[in-house]
């Protein structure tokens, strides 16, 4: 399983290095979304910070800054859909799923490999988008460890659930439109937990964020587990 996973991941990443689709197309798309959110939500509006003011921070914060963590994760989700689509496109462009099956690769290995490769790509993407969001939405980091943990766990959860559902929807038609319908409701809790953890990492206090990171960890384990178990039955007769 791990041998196959590593092989698949290396192959997918090499293809990405060669084609630069995620970095060259998905990342600009994400940055564009960040800018568009800024236009849609006026950066001038100010809100009173919730609860007690935090030392070192102004009491008043623009609406845009306030909702920035959510916007960031929304952008990541939309971008991840594109990255996942790409991940399956490279297998279906020349019937390669047939060859993967003929090679007798472990379906769980294929799943993990795809997940690993997309995680690697998304982490790069998130780093860039995170810097972008910090600049565009005027955010300051208070707890880097919390943020990093949340990002890694959320990315793993998004990718594993996304890979599973993209495989489920892969077929002759309608994948492009069906995948968001299947994936986004499932990822709603991940969006929620990741946003709240990020809010704590940005606005503090960090102690509020760790329970959500724990929840993200549970999601991650759950979706990776479900993916490993059910990827075989999904791929079997396709």
């Amino acid at each position, binding site marked *: 399983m791990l041998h196959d996973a590593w092989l698949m991941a290396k192959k997918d990443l090499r293809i990405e290095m060669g084609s630069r689709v995620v970095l060259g197309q998905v990342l600009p798309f994400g940055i564009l979304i960040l800018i568009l959110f800024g236009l849609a939500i006026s950066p001038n509006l100010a809100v009173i910070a919730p609860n007690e003011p935090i030392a070192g921070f102004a009491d008043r914060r623009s609406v845009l800054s306030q909702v920035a963590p959510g916007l960031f994760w929304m952008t990541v989700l939309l971008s991840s859909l594109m990255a996942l689509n790409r991940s399956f496109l490279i297998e279906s462009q020349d019937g390669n799923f047939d060859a993967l099956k003929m090679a007798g690769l472990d379906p769980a290995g294929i799943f993990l490999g795809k997940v690993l490769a997309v995680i690697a790509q998304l982490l790069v993407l998130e780093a860039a988008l995170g810097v972008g969001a910090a600049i565009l939405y005027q955010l300051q980091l208070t707890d880097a460890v919390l943020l990093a943990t949340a990002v890694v766990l959320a990315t793993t959860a998004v990718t594993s659930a996304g890979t*599973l559902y993209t495989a*489920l929807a892969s077929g002759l038609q*309608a994948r492009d439109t069906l995948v968001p*319908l299947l994936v986004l*409701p499932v990822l709603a809790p991940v969006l929620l937990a990741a946003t709240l953890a990020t809010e704590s990492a940005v606005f503090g206090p960090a102690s509020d964020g760790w329970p959500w990171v724990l929840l993200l960890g549970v999601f991650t384990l759950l979706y990776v587990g479900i993916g490993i178990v*059910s990827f075989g*039955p999904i791929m079997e*007769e*396709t």
Partner: protein
Amino acid sequence: MTAAGHDRGVGKGVDQPSTADAPADSPYSGNQNGGRGSAITDSASKDHPVGTESKLTRRLGVAALVAMAATLFFGLIVSGPEVYQRDAARLFYVHLPSVAVAYSGFTITLIGSVLYLMKKSIFWDLVAGAAAEIGVIFTAFVLITGMLWGKPTWGVYWQWSPRLTSTAVMFVMYIGYLAVRNLELPAEVRSQRAAVLGVINIANVFVVHFSIQWWRGLHQGQTLGVDTQLDGMMLFSLFLGMVAFMTTGAWLLVHRFRLGWLQHQQSKMLLETAIAERNAEAKTATAYGQGA
């Protein structure tokens, strides 16, 4: 392709008279009249009516109608307004039973999916699909009646209450399940994927429900619950609603399953026709073999 077209043409010719005798005047009594109508016209094959009805479903339909009428009578007329929410509380008599039917539907989907994965029989696949469709429809009822109840009670149609929010997410998830069932895939592949999704969806429902609960709980506490005091007559109305909706749900489930079964039979028949046509093609086309 030619086979399908051919069959469709034949079907159109035949179904014209049979839909004509379906009652068009009163859709409310549709199931009951429909049953009788087909029994009369189909006297030759009384035991096998054309559509999805049968003796069992006719009885079930009558029971559902009676219970539904009783619910309306008790819910809207006999039982009085509730102390806090006044007449809006009457929505409970359809809201809560819809919840029950929706959740039963999704539970049956789970059971059907698990059994399909174990036995690989089309029966369980069709059961799971039929139950999911009914679950989705009743979840829509839950959301709509929930919102209609919310307006007079909370002053807004939509409150980000954990229950409403997670129900909405669940609703979309099962729409996705139905979409997977409609994918253009080989039948076995589609059934298999639907079954996997039918199982995973339940896990997702719990995850979504739990996390949203936690989210709202942490943020503003569960202050949104409204005091209710149900007297005996109200509880009786609610009970009647449960009975009526569960019977209706069962009736719908049986019919939806049978529709799926008939469609399955139809696709099997189309396939047999297509095989027969290919056989004919093989016999006439051997000339190619000799020529080449």
